[in-house]
């Protein structure tokens, strides 16, 4: 009998990955943002990272990181992309999730 890997289950966790599929072709607008310097464990390597409140075209809002965003201002257009979020310890699962990038 095969043992299923833990990743198969974590991938289906709604709060983590539910977003990834549902907003594939949606654009959004930056409502507000911050650059995080005082990060929780697991995110230290990314400091400073941009975290934004994004209003999506479909009427929903999300809080997500925005990548490659040196000149970010409120009102900019963004689109979703799949990115690495963090790693569980040295040998743990690599968590992927939705981040956003500026639309050129």
């Amino acid at each position, binding site marked *: 009998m095969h043992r299923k890997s833990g990743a198969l289950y974590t991938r289906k966790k709604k709060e983590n990955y539910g977003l990834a599929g549902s907003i594939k072709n949606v654009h959004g607008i930056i409502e*507000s943002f911050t650059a*995080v310097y005082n990060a929780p464990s697991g*995110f230290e390597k990314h400091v400073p990272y941009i*975290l934004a*409140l994004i209003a999506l075209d479909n009427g929903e809002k999300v*809080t997500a990181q925005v990548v490659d965003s040196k000149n970010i201002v409120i009102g900019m257009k963004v689109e979703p992309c799949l990115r690495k979020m963090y790693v569980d310890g040295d040998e743990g699962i690599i968590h992927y999730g939705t981040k956003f990038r500026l639309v050129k």
Partner: protein
Amino acid sequence: MKIPIIAAELLKFGELWNLGINDLIREIGSKTLNAAGISSKEIDALYISNAFSAKANNKSLLNSIAFEELGINNSVCISSGDASGAVAIREAANSIMSGKSKIAMVIGVEKVSDVKSNDMALLSSDMIGSSEYFSGATVQSQFAIITRKYFNDFGIGAKNLFFLTAAKHRNAASNEFAQYNFEIDEEKIGSSQIAADPIRMLECASYCDGAAAIVMCNEGNEKRFKGKIQGYFLGGSVANDQLELAKRGSITTMEATVKAAKEAYKITRLNAGNIDLMEIYDFVPIAEVIAVEDMGFAKKGRGIKFVKENTKKINLSGGLKACGHALGATGVRQAVDVIKNLEGKKARYGLAQALAGTGSVSAINIFGNKNA
């Protein structure tokens, strides 16, 4: 209905390396029972407010610890994040109003200085939404998003709120129970490290250890404690909102505070104009600005002006920023400070407001002085 408060005590907040959570409960418990002049057997109900003991101290049955240390029966733990203390006070008042208890006690206690600082961000992550946390958000970062939005929408020339933090440290200078009871000038605050842009490190309250307690009695016992009465609990309310900022309609208004204030004013038949002084949740400066707007002290967008003109009315203790933020103890500490300052300032009505996390819970209690 007025509920007499017969003792209100504090321990100094800070990094209390020589006290464990058991010690804190014992010290504040016996100090408060002594002040009230009663024995632990006379307490009909004890509410212990705490936010993180299960994670930070590996102890969740603080009510059993209270029985061990103080011998108080019939106690329960109340956990609502930063607002725990304020919620516990309302619960104690409810138990008296229902007639179930004659004398009720609230102990707020927190012991977090053994937790490393970036683990603390992990710990406090249960006060924000899980998808926010998954994206690397913290309570600070969510308030930073709110701050930028507020400046963007209502900014009217304001670039920062450094003056507010400086004013609080000035207020705290005479408060012997505050962790940081010294002055810090605006320049130093403005040049400190960035926590989450635009919020600086010295603008954020820091988590610390602490304990505070109050004892209340019913009307029938008022005569017995005549000389002991410190003030009166007049009414309180708790309201909730979404955990995630993304699910709220507006992030520059705390819906929970609006609802709680409405309810509290209704119960006490008072309004914002009657309140002489207040202790407000100021984990970051913007929380205080938004709170005074939501509680009806200033119109939307005028909060900054109001807090600038009323630094001698708001957070006389120094607030969470200068007192230190001992999560579960903070709500009780605010109540103790309101009661003490009503006496000291010869004022009539005072208000204490606490949020949990970024405003998913808001608790407001209103107190009156001895003659209220």
